[in-house]
């Protein structure tokens, strides 16, 4: 998943190796970090109801709805925060919204 980076930040790195001040010196390195682990609600995609209208895709603030060849796929739960915006937007009730862990 990791692209070409000036620096690959990993959890086993020493403080000596990291950019000072916590600066992000690679644009778009958010995909290297799993930031979805504190989600309390979870969107559930229902492919049977989905019409692939793609109205959900542009509203996700975390780019957690991957699209390939013009079709959405299942959520990227490493980055989805469970905000529920996609749930509200979907005109076909093709996204369920459930408590995480249930």
């Amino acid at each position, binding site marked *: 998943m990791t692209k070409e980076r000036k620096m690959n930040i990993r*959890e086993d790195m020493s*403080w000596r190796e990291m950019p000072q001040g916590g600066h*992000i010196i690679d644009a778009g390195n958010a995909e290297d970090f799993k930031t979805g682990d504190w989600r309390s609600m979870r969107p559930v995609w229902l492919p049977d109801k989905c019409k692939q209208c793609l109205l959900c895709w542009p509203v996700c603030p975390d780019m957690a709805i991957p699209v390939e060849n013009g079709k959405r796929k299942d959520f990227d739960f490493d980055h989805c925060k469970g905000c529920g915006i996609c749930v509200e937007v979907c005109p076909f009730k093709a996204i369920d919204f459930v408590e995480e862990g249930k």
Partner: protein
Amino acid sequence: MAIKDKLSGNEAIAVAMRQIDPDVVAAFPITPSTEVPQYFSQFVANGQVHTEFVAVESEHSAMSACIGAEAAGARTMTATSSQGLALMWEMLYIAASLRLPIVMSVINRALSGPINIHNDHSDSMGARDSGWIQLYCENNQEAYDNLIQAIRIAEHKDVQLPVMVCYDGFITSHAVENIELIEDEKVKAFIGEYRPQHYLLDRDNPISMGPLDMPAYYFEHKRAQAEAMKNAKRVILEVAQEFEKLTGRKYGYFEEYKMEDAEVGIVIMNSTAGTAKFVVNELRKQGIKAGLIKLRVFRPFPFEELGKALSHLKAVAIMDKADSFSGAGGPLFTEVRSAMFDYAKDTKAVSYIYGLGGRDVRPDEIMSVYQDLLEIARTGQVKSTFNYLGVRE
């Protein structure tokens, strides 16, 4: 040839800023620091500097603007005092942790309350754990010299930390003294061009600053910040050596005054060191082996060097112009005594808090401290460890 002049502390700082010609100055007026941005804004209006002067609506905004400017890649300076520094509080920590080498003059004034505009060190002492380097100055010459050195220290690649240059409100800031200035072009050559490694306006290398830092990384970033402060110890001496070559004026972590054979001594900061040196001279005339240490660098703290410098004394008084309300002495006392535990175990140490809210400190009062120390040296007994000097009991 150096330029001889007569300037107040605030004028000297403004002149140094003109010579440094920073890219951005963002400041808000507060007594007794007001004159610094006031004089400097005249240089801006006259076209003597190329600086973008940002007149903000509060000190919180002043420091925020400085952070934004420095992050963008601009050499940035400001000045404040007392409540102004207190209002900057949260931004001070952010400037240091983002590793932004902002240089700020802190014209020391008592913190409210009760409200008081006169000198003590409660403002900068309160910011001692904010991650800023702190240099303290006895007089106008030192304020001028330290400000110029501060640029080099702050911007050094192994440091990259903000610096406060602290001097006493009114006593130093408003009193006119003889001063030796460095020629403009020599200052320019000494400080050099500012070339940050990472900055926001570098469009070929886009970066983000100040993102959320989760438990997996925050500690490492703080550890790196702590290392930068350790590195500053070395860099401060390197810059001082270069500065001495330029001016002949010598700087270290602290000044030792008649300490070689001293048996009793005091540790003190800023302008009262001048009064205390007069007292040391009087005592020396009577054959009493008195000495003095004037601390210049409080952050980073010269733990080992200061501890060792006190090891041959029989008794030392550590004098704080700020109380930390711990019930156990001021901040300087606590740290110096901690160093002495490792390096000067046999020297008796006592704390004196003095001069709060601009209370005058007279030579006879400093003399009484030395008399107390001589008594301790003679008897080996400390009657009172925590003392207040010059207050009506």
